[in-house]
């Protein structure tokens, strides 16, 4: 066995841990209580004014939450909601909503 392989695997593992690129959908579900009031029990929203989140692309959801956080996207409700979210919260919540089924790519 090439002795470099374990080193490579270990460094990939450390990179993953350091940059935390993936969220935990189960943890996200537990953090989603405040979201449910508008976005529904399972990511299908309660009003036509609020977007469905179920099955949306994870990287789009991350970008949206970060854009609310940095002011690039403006919405009084969402800017208030994201103010207290950490990057870990965003990863977990978006992992949860993107893992559901709902939205489709439509031509």
């Amino acid at each position: 066995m090439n002795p470099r392989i374990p080193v490579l695997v270990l460094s990939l593992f450390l990179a993953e841990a350091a940059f935390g690129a993936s969220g935990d959908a189960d943890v996200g579900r537990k953090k989603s209580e405040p979201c449910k009031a508008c976005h529904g029990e399972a990511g299908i929203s309660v009003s036509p004014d609020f977007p469905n989140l179920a099955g949306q692309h994870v990287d789009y959801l991350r970008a949206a939450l970060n854009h609310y956080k940095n002011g690039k996207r403006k919405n009084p409700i969402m800017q208030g909601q994201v103010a207290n979210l950490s990057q870990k919260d965003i990863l977990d919540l978006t992992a949860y909503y993107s893992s559901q089924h709902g939205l489709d790519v439509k031509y």
Partner: protein
Amino acid sequence: MIYRPLIALALAVSLPAFSAGDAAAGAKKNFQCQGCHGVPGWKTAFPEIYSVPKLGGQKASYIVAALKAYKNGDRDHPTMKAIAADLSERDMEDLAAYYAGPAAGAAATK
């Protein structure tokens, strides 16, 4: 009293008129949307890279609000701003009705 059923009928008939958009019209107006939102796995190229959102099954009023937000600057994405700038409110409502509606034989994928 006897007019009540008539009033109810009139309301029932007029209700669809209030659900603004025309999905069939929207299906003919979405040529600018298809190149990104109709391609599974398509990502934005500039200024940040992330997947373009899935629109199939999205709420109609939300889609209209999003398009208006691009038009008035509350949402900031160069491509979407350019496209929304030329859409009328009627166009936005028709497109929203199309995307919110059922897949209806269109190529829809998860």
